[in-house]
């Protein structure tokens, strides 16, 4: 090998690989061993997925996995909701790109986005075919994907032209869409009612998870504030609640909730098993979110509150405008970690007899026609959950960088 010249050229990928994996003889041996192991496992898995596994158990039950026993003649409501969600996602995505916080990445299609689009397109083309869906349904998925991308493109192109006053109200489409989604799913306002016991599969899992995530967050913030309050009753109440919930396994709380929640909540709020379970999940996660938020609050110097108070801000305003924005940013990664746990904890619903993803999977596997197909089912479940959690994680990372006020130099504030 020629002697390294003092003027270092930026190493190419091959050289870098060589330097990082084969720096010494021992390193090289370890690397070869690990790579060999990985290749063997990868090949084995690929062979199983492509050759041995029998995927009819998934394709024949795909509707069941997606929405459970949701009545067929009402499923158009779910299609409508999916379409609206795709539209809102595309719009939000495009707007975020059109209005970057720091001028640096004002590119229309940054590299990350091109990857995301590629993955979306591949999924949209391949997944419906892999599931052997009927052609009209395949076409629907393609149309929805196309709509998402179109909205993304349009919002990215013209988003910056929307006046700031209108832009401030844009995030409201999400809560509105959530309420609309609730109506579409459960009925009411002229739509036929579909009882919660008919919801199932991915639909039920996502519904439970989003409901609990949305409600446990404000509840957790209030508990965290209560725990640091000067009022003894509030403080001890919060401590007692948090420690009790954190000391009990979720599954016992779920069973407990099925039995006693009917007495605790005013009639109509928890009328059936599904909603009772949703409330238990919410109250459970709130205790953990409270602990995450508390660590965020502890990270904010006391001087911040003192400065706000000495400027004459009353306590609630000092918290809302000064302390919480900073504390929640610190607490964001831990909080999203709790959301991810919550999403995974929804699988416990199957143990109290609800037909969430796992519950649906168990009924499918109980069918003698699919004897021995457990591995296929569990693999699909694992991948589905992994996708949801990865999306949450990516979202939280994006939010974190967006909320960081000082990192980029020459920042132009959003307003």
């Amino acid at each position, binding site marked *: 090998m020629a002697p390294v010249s003092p003027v270092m050229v930026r190493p190419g990928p091959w050289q870098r690989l060589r330097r990082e994996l084969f720096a010494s003889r021992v390193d090289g041996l370890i690397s070869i061993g690990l790579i060999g192991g990985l290749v063997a496992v990868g090949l084995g898995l690929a062979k199983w997925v492509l050759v041995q596994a029998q995927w009819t158990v998934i394709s024949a039950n795909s509707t069941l996995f997606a929405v459970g026993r949701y009545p067929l003649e009402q499923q158009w409501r779910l299609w409508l909701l999916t379409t609206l969600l795709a539209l809102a996602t595309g719009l939000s995505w495009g707007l975020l790109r059109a209005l970057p916080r720091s001028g640096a990445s004002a590119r229309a299609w940054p590299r990350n986005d091109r990857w995301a689009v590629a993955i979306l397109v591949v999924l949209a083309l391949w997944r419906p075919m892999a599931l052997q869906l009927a052609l009209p349904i395949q076409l629907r998925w393609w149309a929805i994907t196309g709509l998402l991308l179109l909205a993304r493109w349009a919002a990215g192109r013209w988003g910056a032209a929307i006046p700031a006053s209108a832009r401030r109200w844009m995030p409201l489409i999400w809560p509105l869409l959530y309420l609309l989604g609730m109506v579409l799913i459960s009925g009411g306002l002229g739509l036929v009612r579909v009882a919660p016991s008919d919801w199932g599969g991915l639909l039920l899992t996502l519904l439970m998870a989003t409901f609990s995530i949305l409600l446990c967050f404000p509840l957790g913030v209030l508990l965290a504030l209560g725990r640091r309050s000067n009022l003894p009753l509030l403080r001890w109440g919060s401590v007692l609640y948090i420690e009790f919930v954190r000391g009990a396994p979720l599954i016992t709380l779920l069973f407990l909730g099925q039995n006693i929640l009917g007495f605790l909540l005013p009639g109509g709020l928890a009328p059936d098993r599904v909603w009772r379970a949703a409330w238990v999940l919410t109250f459970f996660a709130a205790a953990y979110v409270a602990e995450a938020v508390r660590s965020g609050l502890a990270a904010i*110097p006391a001087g911040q509150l003192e400065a*706000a108070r000495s400027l004459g*801000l009353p306590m609630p305003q000092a918290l809302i405008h*000064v302390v919480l924005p900073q504390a929640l940013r610190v607490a964001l990664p831990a909080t999203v970690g709790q959301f991810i746990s919550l999403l995974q904890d929804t699988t416990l619903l199957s143990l109290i007899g609800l037909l969430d993803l796992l519950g649906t999977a168990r009924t499918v596997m109980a069918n003698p026609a699919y004897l021995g197909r457990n591995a296929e089912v569990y693999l699909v479940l694992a991948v589905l959950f992994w996708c949801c959690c990865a999306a949450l994680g990516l979202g939280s990372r994006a939010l974190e960088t967006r909320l960081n006020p000082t990192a980029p130099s020459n920042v132009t504030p959003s307003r």
Partner: protein
Amino acid sequence: MTRSDAVMIEARGVEKWYPNGFHALRGVDLTVEQGEVVVIMGPSGSGKSTFLRTFNALEDFQKGSISVDGITLSDDLRHIDAIRREVGMVFQQFNLFPHLTVLQNLTLAPVLVRKLPKAEVQRRALDLLERVGIAEQAHKYPGQLSGGQQQRVAIARSLCMEPRILLFDEPTSALDPEMVQEVLEVMQALARDGMTMVVVTHEVRFARQVAHRVVLMDAGVVVESAPPEQFFTDPQHERSRQFLSQIS
């Protein structure tokens, strides 16, 4: 200088115990008149910060009485909020809000507390930033400024509430030496305009040039209170002489 005889702060026999039982203030008296600049000096741990922070109820006290701008400090929350609107405070660690821009730091309280129109407050904020010499930084975040600039923003933030009294707790102690002067100059200009100020500081030069009165605290009591010339050249108490020999 516009000094009148109106009393702005009146503290009588103030005593404070911290929750752990430490007797931090042991009967402190102080009267501050309108337009007066009072510098409080004293060794570390003598209770200067504690005393200063009772004026805007950041610390409570157990005995004695304090009235600020005619309002008696009591547990009544409305009184406390009323006093805080009239009393600005500048901290050793600046305590700017890092998630808001400089301009937003200034406008937050006037808009929320005084309910003034945003445009008007922004205009006043920009004027104030001009006055403390950092108008061009209005849209940066505090983390992007030097210490001296941050402390000047903090002063402007207090002024934006149009307070009648300004409290300073060691405003230059956290600054690099070359930035101390720029902050002291801003404070001197405020004193010249007739602002009532109570300043805890170790800056002897500032005390000599700007203060109307220097107060020495030790172990939770006021030991000496005298015009700066007399305080620094002819202190009446043994403890004051001892303190002066330590800092010079």
